[in-house]
């Protein structure tokens, strides 16, 4: 503590060059903020307009269940089988879709469990049996659904396992899925009907989550499509896969979300690129780094990097030239009591 000229006590503290800044008592120069703003706005508008005219923007058509099952019916049939027997990615995902999988964790911390299942998905019912049960005038399919649902879990497993193995060698000709003969119970009928329904476009509508006329939630069709290989193969061709720095890319040769480069970087290196907990590990790293960036003014050492780098000498080179011309006369800038 010290006292001011009126005898009042006042707080003092040591000046720290990376934390404090002395009040400016030097020269002021005209600076037309309004003019700068207008010029910058014109430059930005012209630049953006030029880039838009020259390069446009990408708009690759979305994949639909219809387009997927038409382009690659075998991949579709394989995926539908895994949805039916509960071995697909979504079926074994865990929260927030179901409780069938192990959520990602860091040590004992499993954040996905905190809020639990919020978008419940039973892949067998929601992706296969439910949509098929909406097919009108198709007693064969309805009987297959009943037979499948009435069977024991072991029997269901035996049918789907056999079919899953066989469908890998299936072909598609004359509008039909041709699978080598075997004991698949009702599964062959179910998957063939599901494939036909998908190719007709009816499955796209049946998968929409909404039970009302208007719907905007595409969670179910998106997860179903993403369980297959077709979407991933298209993405890979467009350099969008995780190991291609895909998180910051977009289709075509557009810059994409370049600002996510650091986030994407962690997916390219251990531990995230090999760990089953990679996503949460990357999030944890980014949370720490972001906190460091936001709190850098309070972190000794980190807040000294700008001074050590001396890049500020480049930014304020005119100022320092002026200071050097004036010699030590500017020492008057030291605040006094």
């Amino acid at each position: 503590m010290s006292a001011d000229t009126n005898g009042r006590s006042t707080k003092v503290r040591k000046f720290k060059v990376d934390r404090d800044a002395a009040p400016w008592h030097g020269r002021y120069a005209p600076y037309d903020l309004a003019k700068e703003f207008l010029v910058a706005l014109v430059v930005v508008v012209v630049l953006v307009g030029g880039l838009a005219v020259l390069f446009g923007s990408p708009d690759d058509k979305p994949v639909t269940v219809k387009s997927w099952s038409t382009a690659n019916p075998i991949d579709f049939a394989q995926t539908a089988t895994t949805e039916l027997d509960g071995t697909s990615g979504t079926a074994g995902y865990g929260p927030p879709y179901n409780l069938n999988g192990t959520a990602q964790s860091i040590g004992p911390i499993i954040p996905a469990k905190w809020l639990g299942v919020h978008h419940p998905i039973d892949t067998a019912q929601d992706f296969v049996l439910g949509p098929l049960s909406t097919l009108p005038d198709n007693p064969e399919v309805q009987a297959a659904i009943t037979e499948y649902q009435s069977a024991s879990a072991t029997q269901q497993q035996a049918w789907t396992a056999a079919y899953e193995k066989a469908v890998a060698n299936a072909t598609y000709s004359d509008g039909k899925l041709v699978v080598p003969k075997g004991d698949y119970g009702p599964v062959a009928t179910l998957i063939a009907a599901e494939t036909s329904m998908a190719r007709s476009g009816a499955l796209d509508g049946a998968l929409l989550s909404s039970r009302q006329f208007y719907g905007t939630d595409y969670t179910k069709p998106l997860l179903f499509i993403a369980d297959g290989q077709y979407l991933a193969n298209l993405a890979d061709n467009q350099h969008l896969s995780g190991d291609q720095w895909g998180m910051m890319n977009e289709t075509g040769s557009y810059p994409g979300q370049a600002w996510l480069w650091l986030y994407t970087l962690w997916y390219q290196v251990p531990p995230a690129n090999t760990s089953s907990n990679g996503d949460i590990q990357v999030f944890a790293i980014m949370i720490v780094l972001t906190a460091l960036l936001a709190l850098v003014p309070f972190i000794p050492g980190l807040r000294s990097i700008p001074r050590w780098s001396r890049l500020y000498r480049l930014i304020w080179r005119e100022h320092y030239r002026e200071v050097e011309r004036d010699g030590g006369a500017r020492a008057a800038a030291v605040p006094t009591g």
Partner: protein
Amino acid sequence: MTIVDPKPARPDQADLDKAAGRPEDAAQWTAKIRETAVEALPPQKLLPDRQPAYVASWIYVFGVTTICALLVVIATGLVLAIMGPNWWHVSSTGLFVNSLHLWSVEVFFFAMVVHLWGKFFMAAWRGRRQATWITGVVCFLVSVGAAFTGYLSQQNFDSQWISTQAKDGINSTGAGAIFNVTNFGQMIMWHITLLPLCVLALVGIHVLMVRLRGVVPPFPAKGEVPEGTEVPAANATEVEA
């Protein structure tokens, strides 16, 4: 005969004084808010026509460039919102507006990142400007979220792929329970209302803070303010603890 209504005269200072600032009204909340605001940011400080002589570098342009790009983002986004989410997929004019929107976002982030790193290497948090720095960083983060939800709202292959990949990251944090990246309706609402409002509010607060504290001065040159000098808070508010 034509009767022309005289243009109403602008109130002169005497009239304004009658309407505000009377001593008997000083206890009013309105009066207190006005007095506090004017005291903190008088017009000369809010919109100065002079700056310290050290404000003379191209790096200072990137702050205002960020704001200008944000205005173009908002303007083009408004056109897209007015015409609806399907418009740009079926209209060449719509596609062009979408291209303007995309490239203004790219320019916005480019300018913002240069501005951020420029301010980092100027240690622009010095002199009680920590909150200015933090609002800038938070603004960047919220902008990343706004752009991300924009990519999710495109209704094309990009948004399909991005949403189905990003869900794993979001779900791993537990946030997927309430922030469902595969729900188009939820994402577009975040993109066109919540997040832009947050960005605009944060930019507004950030700019007001810059005006309140002024542009950070250079590091002291040799001989100026040696490290460890005792600084009285009373007349050097920039260095108060």
